[in-house]
């Protein structure tokens, strides 16, 4: 039984925006998976289905000048932060029109123009780097806030402990969003940590932490908004642990033999998109027809993006040799 989330105080437009943003990610991921199986996309994929409420809730609480860092699983973060569907899709195709010009690919989606670094596919790599974003905002007295997405598995890296302690002691304007989807690749978190909640780890750094239902987009948005306010007041970073689940395998080709189908079914009952959809219709914020319209819009946007990506040119091979340095250097220049 799907339970609606609490949408008290939410306006119709806001609710439909949250719904649209999440549905766009879900449909993007489903479509990308089909395209991958058809052999249209190179490389590998780490998909985001199931976790949409986290990316959307978090990014909806940010301002346009706030930057985010992301992980090997960045498609949802990218779309939620405003990377266009066209440029994300084209990047997955390795086309010149992609958000990284075909140099980044699935694991490095990002776009500085919307405040997103190329995603960092080294687990916990973003946790180190985000300290510097926060430090720059603090030193330059802007009111920007940096938000760092990472998985629960990343909290076992040294970078997590060094990064969070440094940010706490410097009172940096950072919001850490840990997406605890229980697994790091095949490994359940309980096999790698005696403390079940990542949130419990940060008390040791004097940093506040909150646990939030990661299948509730409104709850995630509220928690991030509060943490962002706190950061802007100069009170330092907060960790938000969103309890969530990835519906797909770790990467494509993962048969998910390390978890049960019952567990998967139980989490699908908490599908964030369905829960919001139900809340919208039961609270009278919108009708089934409104939701169907959103789906139709999203599907049209996606097909346009696929068409755009397919018809975009490949990068010029000569471009492979640019961008390593600001100005090309002589030593080791291309043969």
């Amino acid at each position: 039984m799907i339970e609606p989330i609490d949408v008290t105080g939410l306006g119709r437009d806001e609710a439909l925006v949250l719904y649209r943003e999440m549905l766009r990610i879900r449909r993007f991921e489903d479509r990308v998976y089909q395209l991958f199986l058809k052999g249209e996309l190179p490389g590998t994929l780490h998909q985001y289905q199931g976790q949409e409420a986290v990316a959307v809730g978090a990014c909806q609480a940010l301002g346009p000048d706030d930057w985010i860092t992301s992980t090997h699983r960045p498609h949802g973060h990218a779309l939620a932060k405003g990377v266009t569907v066209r440029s994300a899709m084209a990047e997955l195709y390795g086309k010149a029109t992609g958000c990284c010009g075909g140099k980044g690919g699935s694991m490095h989606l990002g776009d500085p123009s919307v405040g997103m670094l190329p995603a960092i596919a080294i687990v916990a790599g973003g946790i180190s780097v985000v300290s510097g974003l926060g430090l720059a905002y603090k030193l330059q007295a802007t009111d920007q806030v940096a938000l760092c997405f990472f998985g629960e598995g990343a909290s076992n890296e040294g970078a997590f402990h060094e990064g969070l302690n440094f940010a706490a002691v410097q009172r940096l304007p950072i919001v850490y969003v840990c997406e605890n989807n229980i697994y790091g690749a095949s490994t359940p978190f309980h096999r790698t940590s005696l403390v079940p909640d990542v949130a419990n780890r940060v008390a040791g750094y004097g940093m506040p932490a909150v646990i939030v239902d990661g299948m509730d987009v409104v709850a995630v948005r509220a928690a991030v908004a509060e943490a962002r306010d706190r950061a802007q007041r100069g009170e330092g970073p907060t960790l938000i642990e969103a309890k969530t689940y990835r519906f797909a395998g770790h990467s494509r080709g993962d048969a998910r033999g390390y978890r049960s189908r019952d567990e998967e079914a139980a989490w699908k009952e908490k599908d964030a998109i369905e829960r919001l959809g139900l809340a919208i219709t039961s609270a009278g914020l919108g009708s089934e027809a409104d939701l169907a319209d959103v789906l139709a819009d999203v599907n049209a946007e996606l097909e346009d993006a696929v068409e755009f990506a397919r018809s975009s040119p490949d990068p010029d091979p000569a471009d492979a040799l640019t961008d390593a340095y600001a100005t090309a250097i002589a030593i080791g220049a291309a043969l």
Partner: protein
Amino acid sequence: MSTTAQEPATVGTERRLTITEAIREGIAEEMERDPRVFLIGEDVGIPGGFGGAFGVYLGLPERFGHERIIDTPISEKAIAGAAVGAALMGLRPIPDMQYSDFLFECMDELVNQAAKMRYMSGGKLSVPLVMRAPVGTANRGAQHGQCPESYFIHVPGIKVVAPSDAYVAKGIIKAAIRDDDPVIVFEHKLLYGSKGREQAGGMDLTAHVPEEDYVWPIGRAMVKRVGTDATVVATHLTLYRALAAAEELAAEGVSVEVIDPISLQPFDLDTVFASVERTGRLLIAHEDTLTGGWGAELAARVAQERLYSLEAPIRRVAAHDVPLPVAPVLEQAVVPTQQRIADELRLLLA
């Protein structure tokens, strides 16, 4: 001086294995014969899991238990540090990095600790660990396709090997496990099984692996193809592309010798010297970037020791000095393709 290709002789029934199967078998045999050997890494033994990032360890937890196939948190410093410490206490750990790109997470443990403990202790201590680390470009972009072998040949105290076929892979993983020094074993992820075939020019990537116990000594190269006009030294996928390029040039009446060095530190210079003495021309090919790659070291040694055997300047073909892009057209413009190797050979012979 070798004048014949050194493929293993097939005695008895032929048994063709992939590199994945050969390494799994090599590790299992060593775990069987030496209780001090254990494996430690991420996602190596989770029931229903992957058996390591490329399936090399599938079946091992059932045989050896979770005490000897140790699953870790995502903590490369812990993996490498624990391996160094356990090795110092007399065990023989096999720490696993899912991708060699993650070695940079544990550079301190490898470079400052593993490499230096023997020396700092005046020779009283050993660190017999075997780090496994897959390399190679496979449309995964800048952080999952690097070939960092050359960083480590620069570190005195660490041995570096790079097997490219199943026979050698099994022999050298066994030699590495028995070795008293830290050894990093770099394998190419496109050479593991059948999947890499296409990229390797459709070549058969399996090799005959005899049932008997054998090792391939660290520090010995293998002549993969005998030739008289030029020598190519190449590793991993680039080796197969070099062999294909040699085939291409054979059609043009040119005879190219191809050497797989296998071991990058120590390096079997004698095999290369002997070859260059006969051919007078040397091309070095690797997928690592050009500047400061192991090819530069080899070129310097050959220039110093065999300059007067050379009839032409040494040439190198390598990845261009940029990070790896993901788009296939860009990737192919960066890494050494068969075409580029063949072109370089023509220049070398011109």
